[in-house]
Structure formats: C-alpha cells, structure tokens
C-alpha cells in the first residue's frame, strides 16, 4: 500500500518552483499580498483534518495537516501567527493521509487527487462567493467529491460534518464502483 501511494501521488508533490510559473499578473498579486501573511496563506493552501485525536467527550480537537505552496518564510509566518500552532503539521505531499477526514482548499485541482484516492470529501472554501452552482454536467465530479463553504462559520460546520459523518466518502466510493458505460 505504501509503495502504491507514492506512485499514485508523485504528480502532486509540492514544487518549490511553482511560484515562478505563475502568470505575470499573478506574480504582481503575490508581491502585493506578501505583507499580509494570512492573505498569502489563502493562495494555495490545502488543509487536511486528521481526526485521530478528535473526541467530543474530551473536547480534543483534530490535527491540521498543512500543504502549502507558499515560500517557506510565508508558510512559517502563518503558522507562527496561530496560538495553537502545535496542531499544525506541515506536509509536502498527499501521501499517507488515509486517516484524515477531509481536505480544504480554495480552488485547487489537488482536491480531485485527494478525494478519489482516499475516498474522502474535499471542501472548497470560497468566502468571496455566496454560493456556487455546480448543476451543469461538466461539474459532475464536483457534485460527487465536493462540499462548499462560503463563510468561516460554514467552514467549521462542514469540517465537523466530515469528522462525524462518512456518507460523502461512501458516495465517492459508490461512484468509483460504477462503470463509465
């Protein structure tokens, strides 16, 4: 299983060069946002909740695995800003995440890799929108794998849902069990 995971996930390892591949306007935005570490962290963040230590009885909360494409100093500054920073674990790929419960991203396609490989949902956190319409046929994959959050409050609700309820994962597994024709 270990070998198979690393083979399957080679393509989504973090690359230090990715920022240089951004188009000019994206680089400009990057430059303007570099003063605002929280803003930068929204650029290309994947947060993955690992619910192993979560317990409603004890009140212990989950660890957060943080896959960041930001430069190291920005990523570290973001983590340092958090009071319970010990709960944040930096990762550089999606390997060995079977015990996680969901992935949170802004708009990254990495959500597909995570969701189909681990059969767990991806939450798209889009606080700049009130809603997203994914009824069109081209969004069928999203209909299967995605949950959406448009506010901090709804993000919290969606993460807690993923911790407690495995129905979305079952839906993904059921989809993968079907044939194309």
């Amino acid at each position, binding site marked *: 299983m270990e070998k198979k995971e690393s083979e399957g996930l080679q393509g989504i390892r973090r690359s230090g060069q990715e920022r240089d591949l951004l188009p000019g306007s*994206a680089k400009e935005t990057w430059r303007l946002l570099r*003063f605002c*570490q929280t*803003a930068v962290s*929204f650029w290309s963040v994947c947060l993955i909740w690992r619910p192993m230590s979560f317990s409603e009885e004890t009140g212990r909360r989950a660890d957060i695995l943080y896959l960041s494409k930001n430069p190291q100093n920005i990523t570290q500054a973001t983590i340092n*800003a958090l009071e319970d920073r010990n709960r944040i674990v930096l990762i550089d790929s999606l390997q060995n995440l079977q015990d996680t419960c969901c992935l949170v991203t802004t708009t990254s396609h990495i959500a597909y890799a995570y969701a189909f490989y681990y059969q767990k949902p991806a939450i798209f956190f889009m*606080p*700049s929108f*009130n809603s997203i319409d994914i009824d069109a046929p081209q969004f069928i994959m999203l209909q299967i794998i995605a949950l959406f959050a448009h506010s*901090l409050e709804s993000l919290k609700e969606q993460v807690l849902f993923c911790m407690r309820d495995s129905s979305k994962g079952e839906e993904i597994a059921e989809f993968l069990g079907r044939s194309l024709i």
Partner: protein
Amino acid sequence: MNLKQQVRKIEIDLTNNIKKLLSPTKKNIVIFLPIGTYYKQLGNLPKKLSQKHNVVLAKMTPMPIDFESQFSSNISVGWLVRTTDGEMPIHIDLKEIDIIIEMDSSHLIGIEDDFLSKTAKRIFMPHSMLQAPKVSPHDYVIAPSKIFVECYKRIHPNHINQLIYGGYPKFDISLTPSLARAIDRITYAPTLRIVDFMFASSVCAGYDANILEWLLNNTDEKIAYRPHPSAYSKEITEMYGMLKSRFVSESRLIFDESPGDRFYAQTRILITDCSTTAYTFSLSTLRPSIFFAPLESDDIEMVKHAHRIGYVAKNFRELKRILEKNEDKSQEIAAFREECVFNIGRSEEAICEAIDSILTP
C-alpha cells in the same frame, strides 16, 4: 497617417495648448497628476502656490471641480498613443516650465522621467507619510516625517536629490475640526489590491470577507469597510463587487466610499493590514489602529512603527483581546506625532517656502 505621424501631431498640438497656459511673467509650476487617486495629499497647496505663481494642473483623469479651482488653469494630457499599429510615447519639452511637482504614481505606470520638460526642476510628493519610494529620479523629495527621511536614506544611501523636510498637507487638513459625528464604528481599511483576474479577485475578496465576518460575529458596533480609493475605478472593481455581494443583506456593515478623511470622525478604531491610512487616522484623531496579521519586515515602515500608534494582532484571538480592552492610547500617539511629523499644521507654508527658495536660488 501612420502612428509616428499621429504622435507628432499630438505632440505639436499639446505643446501649443500647454504653452497658452504658461505665464511669461510669473514662475510656471505644473502639478502633474497622471492618476487621480492621490490628489488629496496636496491639501490646499495648489491654492497657496497660485497666490504667487502660475500653477497649472496637468491631469489624465477628470478631477473634482473644487480641486481644479485651486489652480490657475488645468489641461488634460496624455503620455502614450496606442493604436492597432503599436504604441509610442509622447515627447513634450517645454523650457518655460520652472517646476514640475509629481505624485508617486507617474513612474509606476511607465511615464518617462523627463515628460513635459527636460529642464524643469522636479519635486516628488509621496503619498505615504512613512514609506520612501524605491525609485526616485527627482531633484527634490518632500519628506513628511522623520521616519520617511530615515527610510529614504536607507534605501538611497548615495542619493543626490535633496530632501525637503516639508510635512504632509493631507494630514494637516485632517487636524482641522470637522462636523461632530458620533464615534460608532470600527473601520477596516486594507491596502490596495491590484488584481486583474478572477482567481486573485476571489482570494482578496475572500480574505477581506473572513475579517468582516469575524468582526460582525464578535463585536456589537457598526463595521465600516473602507476600500482603497482605486477600488471604484481600477482593476480591483471585480474584487470589491464580490465583497459587496457577499454582504448585501448585512445591515451592520457599511461600505464607506465617502471621499477624504470624513470617516475618521466616526471611527473608534481602525483595522488594516499595513496601510499608511492607519497613520493619518491615528495621528490626527489620537485613536489607535490595529495592524492585522502583517508580515513582519524591516523594509515596511508601516509595520515597524505599528506599536507607536496602536497594536499588531497576529490572529483573531489577539484581535478580540485588543478590541475588548479598548485602551486610551492618545497620549502615546500624541507624543509620537510630535516626535515624528514635520511642520504639523503648517506643512503647506513650509513647502511653499521651500519652492520659493528653489525658484530664487
């Protein structure tokens, strides 16, 4: 007519039109304002200069009438011709111009350093009270504060241009008592976000939306979102529109687009990432500002001196603690103001005197 011929015709016409506005007897000062955003930083300086000199506004965008009325005359100018055949800069060289005062946006958009005149003395007027520009091809630079001077000397250790310890007219105007208004809100005033594609707009709007949502859920006061003045007309319009739509039904949230510093009077505390607005707000009202999650940097003066006018909050918990504490920081801020800002209350006079001495060496 090809592009070169078109440009030549424009150069001749524009040169003649500007010449008509120049005085044969008085000194000619041109205030060149390629982007309308920062005109407030001039305060009443054009009016004061016009009492003695011929002061012409060279603008690229329509400006408010009460601002234009401060000048002896005004004219619309362009610096670039763009057609389907390509683009070509406009060259104008008027020896009759004695001084050109420029705002810090001209070189940023690619305007050549000797635009309008190769011989006029050039004075640069920054829009930040603290942060010195990285590029400064001008003969003179008006310094608003001691921190600006230190920053300028650090960035340009071998500079040959002269610093004028002038002060900051916009700040002086904000010190003038305005109509009494109830202090009833927290204002969030982020820096300019230049975003010209959907994803970046979404990121920026999302970031600001998170802060606004948190403020609405964790305070009882009115919350005002104060966009950068460029938000209405430039590339960030899309981002600003997203933000407005997200909170369209939120009655406690105000999108404050009032011009100038009117919002100071109603603001109890200002929150920003690292905007220089925090300094003009706090130093004029003596009420504190909070810098939310700025990346600590030795290069950014606004962040380095944040504690002199308020606080830095690294996260929402710290923000909550600061807001609930509601400390009076007025004495500390007043002390910083006295220590830092040049010519408080008389910057326009000081700058006029400096310009007079340049004109009469």
